[in-house]
C-alpha cells in the first residue's frame, strides 16, 4: 500500500489515479511544457526582445483594454440581470434564464460573423451608430461588443446563487431600523455579493483575454489599432515565425496563470465570506 494515501476499502485507486496522471501528462502537461522548452531556447534576452516588440505591446494593450471594458460592462449589467432573475418573476423567466448560457453553447465563429453583420455600418444596429458617425464593427469598439457577448454568463452565474442566499431577515431588520431601499442595497446586499461579483468579473476578463474566434470577424484586425494578441500569434505562425509566436504565447500563458491564481483566491475569499 502506497504511503502517500490513507487506507481505504474501495478498489481501483491505482488504476484510476494512474490513468488520470498519464492522460493529464500526455494531453496537457507535456504539450504545455513544449512551449516553455521552445522559448527557453531563446534565452532571457531573446525572449524579452520578442515579447516586448512594438507590435506585440500594442496588441497586448488592445487585448487588455477591450477585455477590461467588456468585463466592466458585464459586471454592471450582469448584476442587474442576476438581480432580476433572482428577485422578480415575469413571463418567460425560465427561458430567459436558460438563454443566459448561450455564449457557452454557441460556437465563437458563429457569434463572430453574426455580431459583425449586426454592427457593420449597414447592419441592423450598426446603422444607428453610423448615423452619428460612430463605427463599431472593424474598430476596437467591435472587439468590446464581441468580448461582452463571450463574457456575459460569468457574472450572472456567479452572482445569482449568492444573491439568492442573502437572508431576508437581515434586509427586514435593516428596513425596520429605518434604512431606505437604496441603503439596504448599499449596506447589506452589495457587501454580500461583492466577492462573487468580483469573481465573475475576473472570470469574464480572463476569458476575454484569450478569446479569438468571435473577435477576428468584427475587429478589422489592423496592426497597432485593432489587432488582439491571439491574432498576432496566428499571424506569426502563418509567416513561419515560430519563435515570435512562442514568445507571445508564453507571455499570454503566464498572464493566464496569474489570472487563474487570482480567481482561485477570489473564490476562496467569497466562499469564506459566504459561510460566516
Amino acid at each position, binding site marked *: 500500500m502506497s504511503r502517500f494515501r490513507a487506507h481505504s476499502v474501495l478498489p481501483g485507486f491505482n488504476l484510476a489515479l494512474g490513468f488520470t496522471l498519464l492522460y493529464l501528462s500526455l494531453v496537457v502537461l507535456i504539450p504545455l511544457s513544449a512551449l516553455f522548452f521552445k522559448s527557453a531556447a531563446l534565452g532571457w534576452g531573446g525572449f524579452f526582445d520578442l515579447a516586448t516588440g512594438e507590435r506585440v505591446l500594442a496588441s497586448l494593450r488592445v487585448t487588455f483594454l477591450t477585455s477590461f471594458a467588456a468585463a466592466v460592462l458585464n459586471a454592471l449589467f450582469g448584476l442587474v440581470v442576476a438581480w432580476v432573475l433572482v428577485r422578480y418573476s415575469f413571463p418567460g423567466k425560465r427561458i430567459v434564464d436558460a438563454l443566459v448560457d448561450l455564449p457557452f453553447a454557441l460556437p465563437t465563429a458563429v457569434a463572430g460573423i453574426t455580431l459583425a453583420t*449586426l454592427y457593420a455600418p449597414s447592419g441592423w444596429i450598426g446603422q444607428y451608430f453610423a448615423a452619428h458617425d460612430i463605427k463599431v464593427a472593424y474598430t476596437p469598439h467591435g472587439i468590446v461588443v464581441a468580448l461582452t457577448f463571450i463574457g456575459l454568463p460569468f457574472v450572472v452565474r456567479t452572482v445569482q446563487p449568492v444573491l439568492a442566499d442573502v437572508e431576508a431577515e437581515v434586509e427586514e431588520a435593516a428596513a425596520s431600523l429605518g434604512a431606505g431601499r437604496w441603503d439596504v442595497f448599499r449596506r447589506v446586499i452589495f457587501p454580500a455579493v461583492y466577492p462573487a461579483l468580483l469573481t465573475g468579473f475576473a472570470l469574464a476578463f480572463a476569458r476575454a483575454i*484569450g478569446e479569438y474566434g468571435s473577435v477576428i470577424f468584427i475587429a478589422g484586425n489592423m496592426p497597432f489599432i485593432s489587432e488582439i494578441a491571439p491574432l498576432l500569434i496566428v499571424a506569426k505562425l502563418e509567416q513561419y515565425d515560430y519563435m515570435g509566436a512562442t514568445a507571445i504565447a508564453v507571455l499570454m500563458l503566464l498572464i493566464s496563470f496569474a489570472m487563474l491564481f487570482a480567481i482561485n483566491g477570489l473564490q476562496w475569499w467569497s466562499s469564506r465570506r459566504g459561510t460566516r
Partner: protein
Amino acid sequence: MMSGYSVPRRISTHESRSVTLLLIAMALGYLVLFLGLPLYVVFHQALSKGWDLYWEALKEPDAWSAIKLTLITAAISVPANLVFGIAAAWAIAKFEFKGKSLLITLIDLPFAVSPVVSGLIYVLLFGAQGWFGPWLQAHDIKLIFAVPGIVLATIFVTFPFIARELIPLMQAQGKEEEEAAVSLGASGWQTFWRVTLPNIKWGLLYGVILCNARAMGEFGAVSVVSGHIRGMTNTMPLHVEILYSEYNFVAAFSVASLLALLALVTLLVKSLVGWQAKRSGEPLHHGA
C-alpha cells in the same frame, strides 16, 4: 403585501414598482441586444434568400465533409474525456492522497489557456519544425494540418468539462454507499455500475452535453492545427469562416444555423437535466 406585476420572492421589503420595471427592462434589453438579436440574425441571414439556397448550401460536398469531420471529432474527444473524467473523479472523490488540490488545479488548466495557444502547443510538438516533426516525417505520419491534430486540439480544449462536473458532485456524495457495497461482497466494477453511476448520471450527462457543444464548436485551437484544406480538414466552424471570407454570406450563415441549432438543443437539454437533477436531489455544479 400586494403583488402587482412583480412578485417579491421572500422579502417583505422591496423596490417601488417603477424601479422594478426599470430593472427588468434594463436586464431584458441587455439580453435581447446581446443574445436574442444575434440568435435571430443567424437564422434570418441563413434564410434571407429562401429555403432553396439554404438547402443548397448544406448539401454542398464541402459542407458535408465539414459536418462529418465535426461529428468524428466530437465522437472521439467526448468519450476520451468522459473516461478520463470518471477516472479522475473516482480517484479524487473516493480516496485521500497527497497533492489532491494541485491535481484539481492542473485539471482546470486548459480553461486558462487561450484557444490559439492550445493549438500552437501541438504545432510545436508535432509540426514539421516541432520536437517529433522529423521523426513523424520519416515515418510518413501527418498529425498537424490533418485530422489527428484537430482531434488532439479538441481533446485539449474540452479536457476539464466532464471531470470538473463529476469531481465536486462525487465529493459531495461521499463514499459510504460504495464502501457498503464492497463490504457486502460487490466487486469494484459492480460497485461502480450499480451504486456510483446511478448517483451521478445527471451530472455526467450535464458534463457530456457541455463537452460536446465545445468540441463541435471549437474554432481557435482547431484553426491553428487544421491547415484549412477544403473538404479534408475543415470542421463546421472553419467552413463557416471560409465561406464568410469569400463573401458567401448565405452559405456561411446556413452552416452557422446548424451550429446555432446545436447550441439551442444544448441549452434545452442542459436546462432539462438541471431540473431533473434538482428533483432527484443531485447537486449540480453550475459553471462554465
